[in-house]
């Protein structure tokens, strides 16, 4: 008998082998079970487009986060809302979704695509993130704040000095503004304006001016849906004021043919005295001018409770109703609000996270620090144009400003157009009116 090439499989060896295989299988099963406990989540977001560095921050954050495996996807600007809503309608929405403020996410709330966060996120974390009043509906809150967008009027301090104006004391009232514009004009500088060709300047003008006659953000909604009347002089006075600036020759001559950002560039380049801008531009613009870009709230003409309040819009994140484990998604949002993550956000984007507990000692630029302290930490209001139905925004908010600046209509005519558009909106959207009216209740507080 020849010796087998294979070792004889004894009963002992068989048992040992069987035990090893069983143990291996059990361990494999265990490790598989352990892996199943790590949640898989999707996060769709936007923002790299306006805040370079955000994508890196998100990638680093999800890599650092161990409680779940989060797969981020940067969305294209044109599909942020439609892509989410289509996916939600099909039951495939991501667990965490980027949300613009106001109506840009409220429609998804009304369609039941988003979860209320009050029962999911710790109250102190939610409040510190400043989701803003515009995320409140039916007593719940539907976003956490992610990063703020302070909105303000900017001015060139060098041009102010040249015109004999105090660069550290910008005009606070409408009359003071007219005096300042007059002096700037006399010094050979175009006093005020920017670029309105793409319409956004028109929107921002309403952002700063309409609240001056309002006592609450809810009042704005009542205007946009036609429950209050733009023909009432106090509600179109802001357009009358714009027409006044036009008639006095204080607006830059090429304003109608310039777009928003080239218009802001004029202030930075020392060719325009006063303009409208947004916080994310301030670090770069301040650096470019050696700290000569000042900021202020729009000079006051109105008598509403919201007059002179700084405006801070906030971009945010929410949890979809499709999320399989909302608690896990909420834990991830809380993780993004942790002190370490807020610091990481600043380091990656050189911009502020939306959290009142953020350690602002890291901010070197005095202008940016001042903006954070005066806009971010003090009482502020959100961008009132985020409450507008899209139809009103396109048909009234944008064209009115453009036509006043072009000299084609008066402030009163702008009021008539707005009132007519509000009525039209009601006719086109009878099913939405009630939702807006409910929203008014949540927005009735002034802050």
């Amino acid at each position, binding site marked *: 008998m020849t010796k087998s090439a294979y070792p004889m499989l004894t009963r002992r060896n068989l048992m040992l082998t069987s035990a090893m295989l069983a143990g291996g299988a059990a361990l494999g099963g265990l490790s598989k079970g352990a892996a199943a406990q790590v949640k898989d989540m999707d996060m769709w977001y936007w923002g790299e487009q306006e805040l370079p560095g955000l994508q890196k921050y998100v990638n680093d954050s999800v890599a650092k986060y161990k409680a779940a495996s989060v797969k981020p996807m940067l969305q294209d600007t*044109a599909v942020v809302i*439609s892509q989410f*809503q*289509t996916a939600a*309608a099909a039951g495939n929405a991501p667990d965490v979704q980027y949300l613009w403020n106001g109506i840009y996410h409220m*429609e998804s709330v009304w*369609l039941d695509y988003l979860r209320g966060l009050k029962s999911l996120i710790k109250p102190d974390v939610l409040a510190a993130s400043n989701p803003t009043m515009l995320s409140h509906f039916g007593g719940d809150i539907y976003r956490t704040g992610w990063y703020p967008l302070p909105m303000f009027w900017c001015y060139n301090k060098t041009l102010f000095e040249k015109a004999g104006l105090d660069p550290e004391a910008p005009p606070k009232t409408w009359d003071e503004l007219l005096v300042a514009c007059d002096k700037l004009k006399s010094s050979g500088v175009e006093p005020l304006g920017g670029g*309105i*060709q*793409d*319409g956004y300047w028109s929107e921002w003008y309403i952002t700063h001016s309409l609240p001056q006659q309002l006592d609450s953000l809810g009042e704005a909604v009542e205007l946009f849906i036609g429950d209050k009347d733009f023909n009432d002089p106090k509600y179109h006075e802001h357009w009358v004021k714009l027409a006044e600036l036009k008639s006095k020759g204080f607006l830059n*001559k*090429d*304003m*109608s*043919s*310039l*777009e928003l950002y080239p218009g802001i560039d004029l202030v930075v380049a020392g060719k325009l005295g006063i303009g409208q801008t947004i916080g994310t531009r301030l670090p770069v613009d301040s650096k470019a001018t050696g700290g000569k870009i000042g900021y202020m709230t729009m000079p006051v003409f109105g008598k509403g409770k919201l007059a002179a309040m700084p405006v801070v819009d906030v971009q945010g994140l929410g949890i979809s109703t499709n999320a399989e484990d909302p608690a896990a998604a909420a834990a991830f949002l809380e993780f993004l609000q942790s002190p370490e993550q807020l610091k990481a956000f600043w380091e990656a984007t050189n911009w502020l996270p939306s959290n009142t507990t953020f350690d602002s000692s890291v901010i070197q630029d005095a202008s940016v620090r001042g903006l954070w302290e005066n806009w971010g930490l003090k009482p502020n209001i959100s961008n009132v144009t985020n409450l507008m*139905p*899209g*139809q009103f*925004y*396109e*048909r009234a908010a*944008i*064209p009115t400003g*453009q*036509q006043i*600046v*072009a000299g*084609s*209509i008066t402030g009163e005519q702008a009021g008539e157009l707005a009132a007519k558009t509000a009525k*039209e909106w009601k*006719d*086109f*959207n009878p*099913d939405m009116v009630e939702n807006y009216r409910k929203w008014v209740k949540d927005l009735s507080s002034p802050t």
Partner: protein
Amino acid sequence: MTPSSRLTPYLYVLPLVALLAFVFGYPLLRIFEFSFKMVRGIDGPWIGLRNYQLVLGQSLFWESVLHNLQLLLAIPVMVAISLIVSVLLSERVAGWKLYRIIVFVPFVLAIPIVAVVMKRMFQFSGPVNELLRWMSLDFMALDWIGSSDVALWTVMILIIWRESALGIILFLARLLSLDESVIEAAKIDGANWWHRLWHIILPEMRGVIEFYMVISVITMLAAVFSYIYIMGGGRGGPGTSTEVVELYIFNALIRSSLPGIASAASVMLFLVTGVLIFLLFRVRRRAENF
């Protein structure tokens, strides 16, 4: 021929017909369906003709229609420019092949690129006005894209400039295929340039001119979105002075979240364009019969 052999050709084309029906027919049917519904998200309740009533009752829609009709005024200009340039090129002047390439360049460039460049040129402080001011023609230095009175005409200039390039190439191709012996015979008979153009060249080119005009009508009614979007600041501005029906549809769908309204306007645009094209071809056929 057996019944089965008669069916065979249809079976061969069936896959393509099915594909076309799916790609074009299905969306078209859905658009017709949506036009009778109040759509929220991906569907909504049936509301009969309400969307059509709302669209037809809105002054902005009629303003948009008017702007489209105004753009039709560009067509005679485009035909005239195309005709003159193509006839001159067909004379084979020195360097005509190079000129032919140059005049076709605008049509090769993407509309957004052309429009962005034009927009810069026509800004109030842009090169066009700077040149006019330099020539002491300040009164002609208009706010080309910033004035509600002028903006649509500025867009029209851009459309004429770019779309004429297609006309030139089409006309030139036809001119180069003409029987030169006829033209030579006319020359010998003493016909001058004008006579040759009017009595020989134009009649020969009638077909291609009509074709170009049909294409241009479709363009002006249903394919100027890119021009308007860029030149009008993405919104048909200033105000609504350059808004056209296509942009109206876009705004209703994307910016106002009203797919039903967008569908109703689309259906009307589709039907009107279809009827116009049908009428144009009918007129042409009748002319051929005479």
